[in-house]
């Protein structure tokens, strides 16, 4: 009898266990919905940017949009060539990377190969503070400190210029590059360093000829994510680089970037579904596509170096 009641108990679990199982199911589905929200956000970005900008391409051909050399959608006659905005974005990003890559890489090499644990513990939080400064504060700094400072040397520098904006943006990206690169360099196994020292190399030779190449895919991934950050940066350029769309690679010029254009248009009160409204979504779509490409390459490179050791 006892045995049969036991088997009955196994065959028909008591109510308590059923409830427990249902509860587990319920919790799992709630957590699943949380995780799915990420995918929903991505889909929403693509759908919203796509549908809101599609109207623009009914009036403007895709060819004109990508190859036109004049951008003046809010004036008569309206011009819809995005090249001037792309040009502004390229120039400011290039200046930023020109600052961020050498400084960031040097700091990473120094912290990972030369500095003591004590120095590292102090320097890293300070760099994190630099990364935590709000971008609007950086914009203020570029406009009211860096530009006047540069004007002492470069006499005919206009008040809004891509140089100051790019330089400050570069300093802003330094912590990102240095921290990611340092992580990559520190994950290089010590055997490689010891081999190099045993062959009589100095710290610099080891750092430059052994550690840097071994960590290169991680380091380059930090560069690429830095590029993506520079391309998407908004406030510094809209405050300090000017709002005039024109094709110029001269850092001493003022020019609008893609992000600055979106801000400029948003500041005015644009009616829903007007041409101006559609243009910011089209520019946003291009922006998100560019950063998506860079991010994908960056993360792909990062995964590759993880598998190496």
């Amino acid at each position: 009898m006892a045995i049969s009641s036991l088997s009955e108990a196994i065959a028909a679990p008591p109510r308590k266990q059923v409830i427990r199982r249902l509860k587990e199911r319920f919790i799992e589905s709630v957590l699943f919905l949380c995780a799915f929200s990420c995918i929903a956000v991505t889909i929403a970005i693509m759908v919203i940017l796509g549908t809101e900008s599609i109207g623009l391409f009914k009036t403007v051909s895709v060819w004109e949009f990508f190859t036109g050399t004049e951008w003046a959608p809010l004036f008569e006659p309206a011009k819809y060539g995005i090249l001037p905005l792309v040009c502004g974005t390229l120039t400011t990003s290039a200046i930023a990377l020109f600052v961020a890559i050498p400084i960031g890489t040097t700091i990473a090499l120094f912290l990972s190969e030369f500095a003591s644990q004590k120095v590292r513990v102090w320097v890293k939080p300070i760099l994190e503070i630099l990364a935590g400064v709000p971008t609007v504060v950086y914009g203020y700094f570029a406009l009211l400190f860096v530009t006047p400072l540069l004007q002492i040397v470069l006499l005919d520098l206009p008040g809004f210029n891509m140089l100051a904006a790019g330089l400050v943006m570069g300093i802003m990206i330094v912590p990102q590059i240095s921290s990611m690169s340092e992580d990559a360099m520190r994950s290089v196994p010590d055997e490689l360093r010891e081999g190099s020292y045993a062959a009589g190399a100095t710290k610099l030779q080891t750092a430059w000829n052994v550690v840097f190449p071994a960590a290169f895919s991680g380091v380059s991934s930090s560069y690429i994510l830095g590029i993506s950050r520079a391309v998407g940066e908004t406030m510094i350029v809209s405050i300090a680089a000017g709002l005039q769309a024109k094709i110029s690679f001269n850092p001493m010029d003022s020019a609008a970037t893609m992000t600055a254009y979106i801000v400029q248009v948003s500041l005015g009160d644009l009616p829903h579904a007007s041409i101006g409204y559609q243009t910011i979504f089209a520019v946003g779509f291009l922006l998100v596509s560019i950063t998506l490409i860079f991010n994908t390459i960056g993360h792909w490179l990062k995964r590759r170096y993880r598998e190496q050791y």
Partner: protein
Amino acid sequence: MTTSLSPSSTPLSPIQLSVVQRKRSSNLFAVVGIVSIAIALMTLIALVLQLFIQGFPKLNWQFLTSFADPEASLAGVLAALVGSCLVMLVTASTAVPVGIGAGLYLEEYIARNKFSALIEINVTNLAGVPSIVYGLLALGLFKYYFNLGESILTAGLTLALLVLPVVIVATREAIRAIPSSLREAAYAMGASKSQMVFDHLLPYAFGNILTGVIIGLSRAIGETAPLVTIGALTFIAFLPDSPIQSGFPFISFEWLKAPFTVLPIQMFNWVSRPEPEFQVNAAAAGIVLLSLTLMMNSIAIYLRYRIQKNLKW
């Protein structure tokens, strides 16, 4: 005797010379490294000094308790300060539960398959989307599709999208660091999966998750671009309804629908004006904003330091 042993008088052999030269260049690089750190540090110091020199005289009680005003000397940041706090409240109360839930699901529940890889790529990509794109999403989705208007709710949800990937990544890293022996111990005592996750993993990971949440929120409080696109106002001379009412039902959610301004938007507005008096205001607002973010950052750094020090599995 003439064959002196002192190294100074004999010319160095080629090998010795090479060692000396290479050591010198190695030391030189260390100096370059220190200089690079100094450049970063000097920028930070210059930035703080510039803010304080221009803005400190303006920073008084009157500035913190006045509304925006067309007269620069009378203008203050009260509405922006309250707005920032309320927006952060909405952001934290939406992004934190969803982010932690997603992180738990991705670490503990998900089966390793193509779907999990898809979500994985998704989270890393979301973290890299420029913040202004979230603003465009909010403009199209929250403002025009859901008709939430230019409200505190819209702003809070927009920033929540921005913070979400940060919370997810922090949760996942915190959970991953917990050794599996603790999970097995919980199962051995008859705990169900959800009991194991919520009674064991979550409390153990709490400190690290909190650190990540604070860093995410400190980033959100300084964000300007996404709120500009949804059309934050810059001239607000009233406070939203208080969430706590004197009459029944004592709690009101009317403030969610109120128009808003936040500190970075107010600062952006003042920076973009040509009058120098407003730039003084901008600097003062910058000090308030920077203090808020630095305070949050240092709490996070301190928390992490404490946790790393005390953590012994």
